[in-house]
């Protein structure tokens, strides 16, 4: 069996892996790093315009081959498995959490506190913004104070967003541009945004994606990337609790072994817990890092409610469709009032679709369709969404599903999100609160709520390897070091105790950068 040795072995090649490897290689240039990824390298930047074109015209996947056949989780939000991970597709939104997310227990008597201070996390949020290249504007709320400015000015608001902001602000709720990992000027070797409107595949590279980082690291010989290689098991030292190796299958179906001083599981909220559970042995019969049964527990995400509101504003769709507004007004809630925390977002939306039959059943063709549509769709439409904070029950979990196995016979993960009792108890009040805000907004510009819908999944999921100080209730410490294995770290989304009430990528990248510093301390500088 081929064996590859390195100082550090990173399992997974998504955004956390990219950020971790980049920082560690800067702090400790002499440290050897192997990165093992189950999916393919889709390093085809030169053809991005072509893929974009096919996506627009035919709805084809702009990242063809970004999955591994038979390797899918039930209950997961995405099947993307490739070098770059879900951050190949992401919209680039880089909202921050707030201090309240880290102080749920001490401020509100809810769930748990995170095991680190906001000031500490905020410092790494700044670093994450620098590395990702975030354009943004500061929040007007004192609680959102920043220790560093954004690296780039915000993306200019479109005509539609300017009008939506004016409308939103009339409700007394201040809106601002959402921070984006998109360049407003050339940055870090990548181009500036030219508003192609297809952030799912950014043809210019203005929107950050981890393939850029991996290509740089490979070119600089700072990492060795083994793609199409699925790690199936972590193996312990015979006499110790440290991890000795990772066993994998490569694309040819051959077994491969990776040996390292330190192992970093950077496999996202699904595959990190999954790998630890798959790695059960006689000494850890429930899986690695799972002495207290916490692996796969407290899977989290945030819930959301969305409305479409018709208003007397000249809103045109698709001016910059994946760009929008945010209000952080509801990130904070008084401890004397019922707990409800959420973000509030506005995007431009399309008006209703043209039709070919009117109310009388008459078929419409040609200009009749245009005339009919204009008579029915004279007003602009806003899409308004609130991501609200919910907390997971312990049995909000990822388990191995014996009924679904991959071609190697490994059981696939099954994720079932469950909210804790307090989150369930406040559900109606939360929903009512958010609907009242929609109604409040609709009172301006002759607004009419066209429809309201609730998400039927938890978005921006995280958890499964919760960080904490007590091994009885957590998997790792605030650096991601597992309580049970001194050389095994979990980084990124799985370590989050909660998913907050807005996009989590910036936060888990920040935590990852902090983990990289800790791991670097284990290696000498030379």
């Amino acid at each position, binding site marked *: 069996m081929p064996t590859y040795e390195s100082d550090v072995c990173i399992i997974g090649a998504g955004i956390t892996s990219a950020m971790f490897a980049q920082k560690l290689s800067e702090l400790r240039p002499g440290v050897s790093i192997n990165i093992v990824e189950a999916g393919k390298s889709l390093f085809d930047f030169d053809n991005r315009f072509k893929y974009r074109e096919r996506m627009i015209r035919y709805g*084809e996947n702009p990242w063809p081959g970004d*999955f591994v056949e038979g390797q899918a989780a039930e209950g997961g939000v995405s099947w993307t498995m490739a070098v770059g991970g879900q951050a190949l597709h992401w919209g680039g939104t880089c909202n921050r959490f707030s201090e309240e997310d880290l102080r749920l227990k001490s401020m509100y008597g809810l769930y748990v506190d995170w095991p680190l201070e906001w000031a500490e996390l905020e410092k790494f949020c700044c670093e994450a913004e620098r590395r990702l290249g975030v354009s943004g504007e500061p929040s007007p709320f004192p609680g959102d104070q920043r220790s560093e400015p954004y690296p780039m000015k915000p993306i200019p608001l479109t005509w539609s967003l300017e009008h939506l902001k004016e409308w939103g602000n009339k409700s007394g709720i201040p809106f601002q541009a959402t921070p984006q990992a998109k360049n407003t000027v050339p940055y870090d070797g990548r181009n500036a945004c030219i508003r192609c409107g297809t952030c799912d595949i950014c043809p210019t590279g203005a929107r950050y994606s981890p393939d850029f980082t991996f290509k740089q690291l490979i070119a600089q010989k700072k990492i060795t990337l083994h793609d199409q290689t699925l790690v199936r098991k972590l193996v312990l030292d015979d006499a110790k609790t440290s991890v000795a190796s990772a066993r994998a299958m490569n694309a040819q179906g051959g077994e491969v072994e990776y040996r390292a001083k330190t192992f970093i599981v950077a496999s996202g909220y699904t595959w990190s817990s999954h790998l630890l559970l798959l790695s059960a042995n006689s000494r850890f019969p429930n899986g690695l890092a799972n002495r207290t049964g916490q692996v796969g527990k407290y899977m989290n995400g945030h819930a959301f409610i969305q409305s479409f509101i018709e208003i007397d504003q000249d809103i045109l769709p698709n001016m910059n469709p994946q760009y929008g507004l945010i209000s952080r007004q509801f990130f904070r809630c008084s401890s004397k009032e019922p707990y409800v925390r959420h973000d509030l977002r506005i995007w431009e939306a399309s008006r209703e679709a043209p039709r070919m039959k009117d109310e009388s059943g008459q078929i419409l063709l040609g200009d009749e369709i245009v005339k009919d549509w204009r008579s029915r769709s004279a007003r602009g439409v806003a899409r308004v969404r609130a991501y609200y904070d919910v907390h997971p029950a312990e049995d909000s979990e990822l388990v191995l599903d014996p009924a679904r196995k991959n071609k190697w016979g490994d059981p696939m993960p099954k994720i079932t999100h469950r909210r804790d009792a307090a989150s369930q108890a406040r559900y109606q009040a939360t929903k009512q609160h958010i609907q009242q805000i929609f109604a409040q907004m609709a009172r301006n510009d002759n607004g009419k709520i066209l429809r309201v819908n609730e998400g039927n999944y938890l978005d921006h999921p995280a958890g499964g390897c919760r960080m904490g100080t007590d091994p009885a209730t957590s998997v790792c410490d605030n650096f991601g070091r597992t309580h049970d294995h001194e050389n095994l770290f979990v980084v990124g989304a799985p370590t989050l105790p909660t998913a907050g009430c807005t996009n989590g990528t910036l936060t888990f990248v920040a935590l990852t950068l902090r983990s990289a510093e800790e791991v670097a301390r284990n290696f000498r500088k030379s």
Partner: protein
Amino acid sequence: MRELARVVLPGSLGSERIDRAAADFVVWIRDYKVGAEISSGYGHPRTQLTGPNPAARYNEQLAALGSPITRQAVENALADAKIDRIPQRPAGRHVAADLMAFFFNSADGEDLLYNAKIRRDDCRGLADSGKRPSKVS
């Protein structure tokens, strides 16, 4: 296809743009790939592939419309096919509905409806994004 386009697409486009839309549709059909991978999506992912080429029966359907193609012939064909809405994408039920779907869901179709040169498929730069797009007509 040009003859059909002149019946089902907006005459206000002018004959040149109608012909161009018809020609674009023919190119779209030609370049269609059966069984191509569609993104598995986000939220509730699933494996998806593009279906059969929707154009399989277009020649037969065009022939059935006769020549010159009349509005009545198109209405009858749509009624026979039980189509009462414009599909989101060409779906192969009838060439007339699919041509409308192709056009009204295109950037040109959107611009015509909104009477604004949004040009959603173009990379438009950031500088002018705060300005209202100029009118189509």
